[in-house]
């Protein structure tokens, strides 16, 4: 099995205040800590488990800055064999269709059985790149995958639908699968793996070296224009309970009891 796993370096904004610059063109991300996108972390684990069961090799693909190499090395420490980091300011990174074209450019011309991606990026949440990538590569796909079973020449997957229902489908290989969180238990990188990862190949390429024409993946090529970013007004009609922690807890308890809510 030859597998590519596509991962993204994303900011953790779960407990952070997010600000947009005054032009409304970019999020001020310098204060955030970055790491592998949650769903991609599961995709890496799935790729490594598939490789352990079926032999073969796993190549990490990522579009991102130099700092993301820590994340890429970590994926290699977990068992991925080598990596390609693509960095080029010309890529229209806000458009998943452009991102998919770049990733396809990094895969095309090579033999592969599987491409795994996370099913959603935590930052822009489009859930589009993996499925678009499959179309670019001209191979079958399945999205939001919660179980992977490699069969002869095909793969049987469980797709997670709404309400906890699973859709079982079979697609022929090679294929692209977008991996849903919770499919497995991502491992921690073993110490010896971390050491070994330093010696593994991590190629850094731009669009020219990749053989992808910038004019096909830049802002001009994109059919959408990001006009404005802004912080949405959060309309909350909640009663905010104030005070010291203990006071807040006591006030809430009495509201719940007096209101007959508990």
């Amino acid at each position, binding site marked *: 099995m030859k597998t590519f796993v596509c991962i993204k370096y994303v900011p953790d*904004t*779960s407990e952070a*205040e997010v600000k947009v610059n005054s032009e409304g063109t970019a*999020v001020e991300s310098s204060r955030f800590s970055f790491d592998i996108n949650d769903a991609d972390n599961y995709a890496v684990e799935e790729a490594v488990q598939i490789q352990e069961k079926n032999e073969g090799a796993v190549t990490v693909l990522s579009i991102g800055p130099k700092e993301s190499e820590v994340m890429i090395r970590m994926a290699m420490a977990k068992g991925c064999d080598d990596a390609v980091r693509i960095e080029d300011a010309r890529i229209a990174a806000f458009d*998943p*269709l452009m991102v998919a074209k770049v990733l396809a450019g990094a895969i095309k011309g090579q033999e592969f059985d599987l491409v795994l991606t996370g099913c959603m990026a*935590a930052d822009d*949440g489009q*859930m*589009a790149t*993996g*499925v*678009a990538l499959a*179309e670019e590569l001209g191979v079958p796909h*399945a*999205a*939001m995958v919660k179980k992977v079973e490699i069969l002869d020449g095909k793969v*049987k997957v469980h*797709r*997670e*639908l*709404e*309400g*906890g*229902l699973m*859709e*079982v*489908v*079979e*697609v*022929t290989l090679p294929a692209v699968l977008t991996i849903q*969180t*919770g499919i497995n238990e991502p491992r921690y990188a073993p110490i010896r793996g971390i050491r070994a990862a330093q010696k593994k190949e991590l190629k850094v390429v731009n669009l020219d070296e990749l053989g992808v024409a910038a004019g096909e993946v830049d802002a001009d090529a994109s*059919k*959408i*224009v*990001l*006009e404005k*970013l802004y*912080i*949405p007004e*959060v309309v*909350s*009609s*909640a*009663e*905010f*309970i104030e005070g010291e*922690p*203990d006071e*807040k*807890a*006591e006030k*809430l*308890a*009495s*509201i*719940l*009891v007096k209101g007959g809510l*508990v």
Partner: protein
Amino acid sequence: MGNVFVLAEHRQGALRDITFEMLAVAPAVARDLGGEVVVLLLGSGVDAMAEKIAGYGVKVLAVDDPLFENYNADLNQKALSALIDAHKPALVMVGQTAQGVDMAPALAVEKNLPFVADVIGLAVEDGALKATRQLYSGKVNALVAFKPADTYLVTVRESAFEAPDPSAAGSVEKVESPLKEDLDYRKFVEYIEAEVGDVDITQSEILVGVGRGLKEDKNLPLIEELAAAIKADLCGSRAAVDAGWLPHDRQVGTSGKAVKPKLYISLGISGAFQHVAGIKGAKTVVAINKDPEAPIFAVADYAIVDDLFKIVPKLAEKLKELKG
């Protein structure tokens, strides 16, 4: 012609809500694009569903083909592709659902369509179509413009729009299936129903929900103590279930369950839209989260901005005392 095509979504014989939610926004966009709303229904044995949709005062274009009995993203893509060629709609709307995300991006690539995913707003401004979507789990909104094209494609977030009530009678037109044969590269095998656990949280009167803010499972007893004090059942966000703190049948949200307790106490849950969609039926929502910008506060009735570990023990103690 600026018709707006809305792809009806159905599963196991029933139309899904997103179909009607899209009808909340499609008519205004169609009017501004100079066309009308046409709902595309691809299914097997579609008559009852077609009639139901037509009851919303729209034209239904129905394709009845046994190949559509169970959803197959690639068959849907093939059919949509042919119907776009034949009817040249100005806009195609698909749900940002497990079905939609498995198909729409590939269709966009195949047909070279300007595409925006997971939109929560759609409008025509000065003749140009613009979509609103969210970044960073709802902390930032983006206004995205489409460059001029014959046909645009969007996927629409579930629960972002409120479905209108049925109105005037529309019409149903049956068209021949554009499909010639089944595919050899993708096969539907079966559906597997969600496992049933010890507690059915859709029936719970009081629920305590935990999220990423719980940090680790050794903190769970603290929450269980609170739950026990008020006879609540425990549930959680996707993050809590992915982490293995709670079994899957306790997951609240679009990929889990929709709950309708009289009281929902949310602890350390940011309130991603997928989770919030699952608690729409809750009568009273209490949210405790240390991030003052957490989207959960938008749906809360009572809110505490603080570390849950500083609040929960005292809250449990006080509740026990008051209920004593």
